[in-house]
């Protein structure tokens, strides 16, 4: 099933199984079903529980918090991730704080899901990966869909967490098929973290020590299948850890990264947005062994141009990642 259909299906199941689940967002009603068609069919099945709003992102966030406080389970869609900045105050000063500042006496169980990422020529305000601005906020889980993660499990675990969860969906993943079982080139393992999400480990070798560890999350996973295959031809053994919960980073993820980092001695950390002050810096910081060679790669720290050629040059891509791997192996 395509990733967009996976998300659509799990939303349907959550609504069917839990009467308190409410969808809220802009243009999410049928026949349109949202800018990326993720909520297609849902307003026909549950007309009372799919709420289309005016263009009021801050209030979408605020209403979700209010509904969550009062016993409902809102799942908010922010049409493009670029617009999530309008929700910042509600997320940071309300959603994350209400439970701890009221000494644990309330909960704010909700999901905010949003598509991030470029590659479609939408230009500077419809292509960004802005999750880095939300990383590190305590009491909010930030989780990313990837090519290798069981999407349904992400959503169901988010639901069970009884707290605000932001789910980042790279829009280039939507039309792709999930890749969750090993084939004869790529071997896949799932690692459950203490918060119930999963990290996925993929390798292009069996029973041997790896040469390099790639740590990443979300949309960057779309390159890994090809890269791992190409590295077989170069006789480079690659293990990649694709983190599910990207903030806060779980203890299990930290120890998993350190274990493989120690085996490889070389770590390449990749992120879709620009790496400056980014997630990859935090991952670098959790690697304990100071002798390990670490490199970070993201998109160029500039605006994302609409022009096709320029956009390709700005965004992280397969070629840049492979060049980086080869350079690191040569050291």
């Amino acid at each position, binding site marked *: 099933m395509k990733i967009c259909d996976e998300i659509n299906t799990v939303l349907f199941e959550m609504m069917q199984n839990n009467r308190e689940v409410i969808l809220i967002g802009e243009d999410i009603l049928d026949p349109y079903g949202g800018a990326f068609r993720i909520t297609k069919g849902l307003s026909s099945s549950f007309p*009372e529980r799919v709420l289309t709003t005016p263009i009021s992102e801050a*209030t979408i966030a*605020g209403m979700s*918090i*209010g509904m969550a*406080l009062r016993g*409902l389970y809102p799942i908010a869609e922010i049409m493009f991730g670029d617009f999530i900045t309008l929700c910042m105050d509600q997320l940071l000063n309300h959603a994350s704080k209400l439970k701890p*500042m*009221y000494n644990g006496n309330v909960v704010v169980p909700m999901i905010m899901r949003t598509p991030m990422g470029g590659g479609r020529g939408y230009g500077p305000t419809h292509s960004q990966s802005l999750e880095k601005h939300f990383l590190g906020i305590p009491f909010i889980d930030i989780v990313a869909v990837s090519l290798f993660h069981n999407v349904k499990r992400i959503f169901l675990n988010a639901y069970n967490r009884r707290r605000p969860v932001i789910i980042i969906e790279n829009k280039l993943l939507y039309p792709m098929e999930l890749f969750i079982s090993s084939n004869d080139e790529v071997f896949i393992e799932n690692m459950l973290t203490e918060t119930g999400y999963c990290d996925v480990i993929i390798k292009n070798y069996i029973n041997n020590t790896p040469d390099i560890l790639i740590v990443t999350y979300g949309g960057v996973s779309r390159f890994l299948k090809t890269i791992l295959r190409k590295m077989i031809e170069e006789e480079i053994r690659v293990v990649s850890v694709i983190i599910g919960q990207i903030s806060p980073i779980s203890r299990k993820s930290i120890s998993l990264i350190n274990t493989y980092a120690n085996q490889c001695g070389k770590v390449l950390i990749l992120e879709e947005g620009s790496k400056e002050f980014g997630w990859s810096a935090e991952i670098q910081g959790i690697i304990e062994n100071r002798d390990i060679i670490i490199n970070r790669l993201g998109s160029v720290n500039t605006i994302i141009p609409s022009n096709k050629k320029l956009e390709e040059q700005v965004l992280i891509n397969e070629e840049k990642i492979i060049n980086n791997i080869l350079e690191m192996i040569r050291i």
Partner: protein
Amino acid sequence: MMKKEKVEKIYSLMLLIRRTEEKLLELFSRGLLNGTVHTCIGQEACAVGVMEVIDKEIDIIFSNHRAHGHFLAYSEDVYGLLAEVIGKKSGLCGGIGGSQHLHKKNFYTNGIQGGMVPIALGAAKAEKFKGSNAIVIVFLGDGTMGQGVVYESLNIASLWSLPLLFILEDNHYAQTTPKKLAHAGSFCQRAKAFDIQTEHIKVDDVLKLINVADNAVRYVRENKKPFFLHMETYRFSPHSKGDDYRNAEEIAKFKLEDPLIKLEKELSKEKVKEISENIDNMLLSILNSINNDNEMSLEELLILNN
């Protein structure tokens, strides 16, 4: 309730709020409070008038930085409030929230101007969805009418017919900024533009206010529609502490219209003395007891991360 009993009750509550906040200002001056307090001295009638007519079992209140009065009128939990502001574990929120971040039962406050308005809207949607008879009340100040989310919320409240009562507590100032430097047009006209019914009242007589608030609450409950109640009031105390730049004559003029003094005239001198002494004694004994209460440890705070 007989008129006399009612007057006694209302007066007691208003005086309780005033004495409690005077106590807080005193503690602050003596360096015994960490942080700040925004008192509502002079505005007590707004809090008491509204809480008098809501259904405290089911209705839901969202308020702001200036919430001690709203809170006491809602719950009369003097101990919980004082312990919270003083920073004790026995406080409403374990001393984590302090003056601006209060919660008990269906009462919630936060210190971000306007931030609670869309949350109140969501709560109103939840009540409507559940088919309950509850209404939601959100308090906001004149200065907060500058925030964009307020208008997003007015729009949706009207569009979706949500049981939300907006209470604008207009004390003419936002911190040091007088209304004339911040707002064009009229507040009620803004709400009317969204097809929301409005009412304006100058708060000089709490009994009159109770009637107006009662009508507003009934309207919201019966029609499942929002209502915008503009209360013009005045605070006698500074915005928080040591930040009063208003004209002294202006303050003195408004003090002559103190709704608390006006109500006091309806009671006998003996009764007033009795009520006042009871409150003072209660505050003293509560403060004594709070003195011995523990504070929360960092370990306990971090448990909340789980």
